[in-house]
């Protein structure tokens, strides 16, 4: 009996008990479709994070202050200390110290109230230098960015994010208008083109940029501390070299050892990794639940196959009497179980795909279904069918033809 005949006999046996076969497959169907969906959700969330972080700029290194330790021993998170200064940024920008850094943009960030006439809007006011648009790969939709001269003179000029601009100026061009920042009147000289990204939780489109000198004057501080220094490496190949150079420079400048570093340098890859580790935990958890439902589905296949063997004892006896060897009988039941598993897997994948196309509009989460997950799921379903078919099949193969024929 060749494989074609065996598969045909298996499919016929399954079709002879449609309802039962469908119910048997249901466990596998539910398991596989939930695996497809959970893996898709996890993948979708990862892709989203990756896309948002890459929208920060290209070949970017993000230098932020280290954690601070208060007198009570309470440690703040990264960025809570004010150990980075404008001097650090200037040193990094020096090509003889950090040859692999192409551009440097130090930033400070403070939440302030912006007022235009009766409208007011609180947003983060970011002080930075002229290199910011290049480092962050951002463009302006209208007007211009501030000049080196305006930075030196701490001019009262501001560039608005697209959302901020919409909030403050519902009609007309904001360029040339005056906006009051915590009481200080500033001239709007440009509006950023929307980035659509919400990396790091806040919208990249809701902020106001001023020269860093202006921002420091508004804060009334002259410490020169900055909250983040964005560094663009000369290319993706020099990214790790730039990392090493900046690390060595800052350790030396701050007079600390690597263990006591009071700053933190992140690459986009490391940011993606950090963000994904949370997602991964969730995906593994959900995937685990889906795997358990698959296991239950597999046990369902075994259960029904055992019932089927018991019920078809006479048929097995007859087939043996007519010349089926134990291995032919074993193969027949194994193939039957595999067909059940495979069919359940295919239906499960189909339902998973339907779910993946419907889910984003329901819960506003992207779902990415990969070919690897799809084929993996189908392979798993097939393996489940085979795995849980082994025992029923060997039971069928072991039946002696006499006992099998005699049973009523």
């Amino acid at each position: 009996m060749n494989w074609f005949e065996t598969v045909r006999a298996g499919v016929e046996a399954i079709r002879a008990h449609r309802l039962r076969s469908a119910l048997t497959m249901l466990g596998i169907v539910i398991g596989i479709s939930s695996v497809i969906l959970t893996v898709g959700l996890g993948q979708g969330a990862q892709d989203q994070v990756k896309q948002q972080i890459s929208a920060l700029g290209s070949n970017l290194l993000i230098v932020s202050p280290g954690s601070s330790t208060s007198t009570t021993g309470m440690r703040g998170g990264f960025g809570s200390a004010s150990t980075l200064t404008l001097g650090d940024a200037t040193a990094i920008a020096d090509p003889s110290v950090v040859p692999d850094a192409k551009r440097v943009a130090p930033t400070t960030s403070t939440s302030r109230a912006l007022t235009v006439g009766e409208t007011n809007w609180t947003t983060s006011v970011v002080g930075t230098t002229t290199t910011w648009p290049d480092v962050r790969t951002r463009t302006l939709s209208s007007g211009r960015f501030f000049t080196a001269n305006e930075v030196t003179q701490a001019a009262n000029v501001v560039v608005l994010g697209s959302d901020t601009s919409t909030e403050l100026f519902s009609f007309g061009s904001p360029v040339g208008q005056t906006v009051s920042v915590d009481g200080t009147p500033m001239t709007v000289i440009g509006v950023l083109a929307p980035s659509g990204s919400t990396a790091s939780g806040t919208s990249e489109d809701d902020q106001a940029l001023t020269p860093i000198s202006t921002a420091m004057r508004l804060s009334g501080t002259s410490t020169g501390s900055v909250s983040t220094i964005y560094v663009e490496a000369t290319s993706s190949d020099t990214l790790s070299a730039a990392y090493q150079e900046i690390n060595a420079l800052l350790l030396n400048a701050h007079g600390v050892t690597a263990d006591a570093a009071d700053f933190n340098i992140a690459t986009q890859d490391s940011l993606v990794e950090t963000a994904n580790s949370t997602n991964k935990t969730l995906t593994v958890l959900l995937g685990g639940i889906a795997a358990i439902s698959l296991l239950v589905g597999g046990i369902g296949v075994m259960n029904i196959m055992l019932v089927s063997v018991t019920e078809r004892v006479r048929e097995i006896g007859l087939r043996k009497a007519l010349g089926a060897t134990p291995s032919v009988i074993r193969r027949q039941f194994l193939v039957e179980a595999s067909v059940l598993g495979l069919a359940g897997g295919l239906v499960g994948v189909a339902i998973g795909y339907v779910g993946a196309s419907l889910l984003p509009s329901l819960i506003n989460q992207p779902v990415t279904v990969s070919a690897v997950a799809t084929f993996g799921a189908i392979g798993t379903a097939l393996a489940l069918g085979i795995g849980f078919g082994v025992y029923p099949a060997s039971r069928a193969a072991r039946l002696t033809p006499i006992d099998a024929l005699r049973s009523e």
Partner: protein
Amino acid sequence: MSAIIELAGVRKTYRSGTIEFEALRGVDTRIDEGEYVAVVGPSGSGKSTLMNILGCLDNPSEGSYLLAGEDVSRMSEAQLAEVRNRRIGFVFQQFNLLSSLPAWRNVELPLVYAGVPRAARRERAIEALTRVGLADRILNKPGELSGGQQQRVAVARALVTEPALILADEPTGNLDSASSADVLALLDELHAAGRTIVLITHEHDVAANAQRNLVIRDGQITSDELVGAAS
């Protein structure tokens, strides 16, 4: 005449726990090609055990069994399956047709296990069904056939491999007298065409159709005689 069946000192002992039961206590017999033999005996006489051994469904505990010159008494289960497929056509009391398959697919079943190609199987199955007078029923499922017709499908299935031996186990046990006569006539016809047939029954009037009767009682053959109806 060459021997199809040669049994020498065949014993069969069943064990269940510490209790032993000897179902066959030394059976010697020989059945030649073209014979029509009935094995007769009351229930519990050992005739079912004998039928199992003759049908290569079970190994004897002792003794030897040559089927068409081949010693099958010590064969493995897989080897026996192959011998059954090649040498023996079974007709059962319960017909044992697969209800989900049409008549011709039931008949071709032994050929599937013999590895005969599909087209040839179909042709031979139709030929066998024509032989038993069911040429117009090849596509009917067993449920759509009368008991007598179902048993004729089973006979066609037994014939299709051209076996050395047709083994019929109470073939009329589930049939009314008209259908019984029908099936017995068919067996007579096959015998006339040169087939070797062993019929197992507890009914003497059914056994009377055969050429030779082996009477079995308490695990031994008590009489072996030619019957008047023999040609």
